[in-house]
């Protein structure tokens, strides 16, 4: 079996000193595939995303997270990112005084040796390609990171960064929330552009709507801190029609694979 995959094994986590939120998550996203992670509010989806990226406000009590067979559990957030992981935040922060271009150059150079900074031409070509992919005006790269951005622009910026940083595995934490259909299409176009044999993604969402544009290879359903079932892309439609209570009872009765 190929080792090229993002893997979560029996992951348990809680807010430092609080109650357990993740109660044994098992999940595999092979390189080259895009998986959807669906679930209701409070099911633990966003916690899972943040725990994977190394958010220091959570405590992992059991289990493991592996990138291509290597555990990243002991790594700091920046080391995880340099190992190839990327989290598109649900609520990206603002960094005044730092342009998108400067920010991304620093982020790219952080992945390289001190004496091997990315060339100016190479960098701008990469950046321009990404900007174009997202139907964005080029002037955006001179704007301060997320300062005065609308919710939709922030989400678009998260995908722009993904395209420039080219991670091996990306987690998209409700990137679709708050987007209108046009914005949704643009963002999806960006994610689809990143798809390829060397890229795996976990797309976290409430709604099936996003999956019309980013068609997943697999759909996982999360409830109460666990993955309760995994299916094909049709599962998302069924969920949309019949709701989460339906799938919970299906799983409980043994009709759906647990």
């Amino acid at each position: 079996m190929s080792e090229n995959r993002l893997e979560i094994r029996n992951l348990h986590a809680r807010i430092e000193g609080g109650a357990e939120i993740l109660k044994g998550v098992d999940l595999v996203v092979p390189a080259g595939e895009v998986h959807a992670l669906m679930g209701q509010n409070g099911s633990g989806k966003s916690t899972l995303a943040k725990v994977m990226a190394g958010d220091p406000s959570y405590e992992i009590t059991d289990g493991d997270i592996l990138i291509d067979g290597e555990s990243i559990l002991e790594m700091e957030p920046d080391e995880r990112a340099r190992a190839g992981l990327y989290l598109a935040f649900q609520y990206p922060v603002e960094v005044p005084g730092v342009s998108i271009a400067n920010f991304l150059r620093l982020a790219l150079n952080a992945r390289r040796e001190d004496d091997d900074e990315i060339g100016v031409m190479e960098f701008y070509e990469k950046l321009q390609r990404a900007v174009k992919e997202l139907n964005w005006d080029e002037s955006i790269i001179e704007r301060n990171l997320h300062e005065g951005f609308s919710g939709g622009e922030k989400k678009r910026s998260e995908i722009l960064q993904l395209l420039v940083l080219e991670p091996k595995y990306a987690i998209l934490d409700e990137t679709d929330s708050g987007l209108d259909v046009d914005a949704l299409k643009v963002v999806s176009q960006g994610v689809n552009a990143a798809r390829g044999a060397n890229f795996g993604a976990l797309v976290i969402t409430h709604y099936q709507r996003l999956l019309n544009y980013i068609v997943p290879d697999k759909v996982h359903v999360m409830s109460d801190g666990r993955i309760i079932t995994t299916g094909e892309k049709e599962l998302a439609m069924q969920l949309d029609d019949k709701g989460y209570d339906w799938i919970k009872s299906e799983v409980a009765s043994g009709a759906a694979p647990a």
Partner: protein
Amino acid sequence: MATLTDNPLLSAGALEAVIRNGGDPEWLAEERRAALRTFMATPWPTERDEDWRYTQLDRFSVTNLEPTDGPASREVSERIRMRMEDSDAEGILVHANGETIERIAKIREEGVIFSDLRSAVRDHEDLVREHLYSTVNAHAGKYHALNAAFWQNGTFVYVPKNVEVELPLGAFTTADRGGLSMGRTLIVVEDNAKVTFLDEYTSDPFDARLFHGAATELVLGPGAKVRYLSLQNWGRNVAHMNRLAAKLGRDARLESLTVSVGGDAARAEVNSSMQGPGSESEMLGLYFADKGQHYNQYTLQHHEADHAFSDVLFKGALRDASHAVYSGIIVVDEGAQKTDAYQTNRNLLLDAESEAVSIPQLQIGANDVRCSHGSTTGPVPEDQRFYLMSRGMQPEVAEHLLVTGFLYEVMSRVTLPKAAEYVERVVQAKLGVPGVKEKL
């Protein structure tokens, strides 16, 4: 603290030598002697004085200074040379160890005087006499009395009515020997005239301890426009005490920026007196303390006239067990109606060992005014740090961005691009950003 009469540097005899060496006219000699008497009669500040409560007084001590022997060098150092080349000033003075060692002036505008202060006392006696000690004098406090008595040299700028000086003027104050140095800047800008001035304090580190006292007097006539930047980037062996005081005539506008990034300890007092109706004073401050540096900043926005505006924004970042104090007050006199006055201080603590004290105050004697003040002091928001690190940035790179972002609110309001770039570079060098070295 020991009595100062013990210190031969500060005796009446030492003062007579200063007067003699400078060839002071009698009126100035008398001012100096009176200032020394005030100095002697004024007790040293203690922690019991409200304005000095949080100041680490021993770091500003002038009693234990040991002056370096021998004649001072009159060479312009490489550090200053590079700073001069980097500035786009029309006129530059270099003061080293209390002496003026260089003057470059390519001033095109007519009637502008740009001179060292001692020469100005000789060549423009009436003008200097009219304005010297008009905003910072011996009664401003113990240290300012010391300056009023002992100032060695400094800068004089005079811009006549309706003249706009296009490019900045500036003075670099430096030292390579220990002891006591005292400098003074006097800037007089007449009706509807305009000038930009940069006072920069910088030195290579040297072994002996130096105390530098600075006084800056800004006199703005009606409609005058002044941009003034004080940039303190001394070597780590220097204690710096600076008082900047401006009086503003009707509809005058002052934009000041006070930067503290160098030295061991620094205290900056920034006062604006809105004496004319409709006058405006924007008072920005920026500091970044590391490795135990101690910075004090005091602001006074004194609204004497109606319809005036003032806005204080002081922001600072601290790390490595550093310490900062901000204390500011808005005073609105009775009758200063329609005053618009704001005061904000924000501190970013980069580690748990650093500490910032912030005391904003209001004293309002009029009833139709808009005033607000606020302060915040806190650590780096964890969500911001996490976000930056999740992009692969090492903790020190993330910190650099967070500090840059935090200080941006001040930097973005600095209207002198060259100076702003330099300040940014100094901050980045202090942060240890890879690839960024402070140009000397």
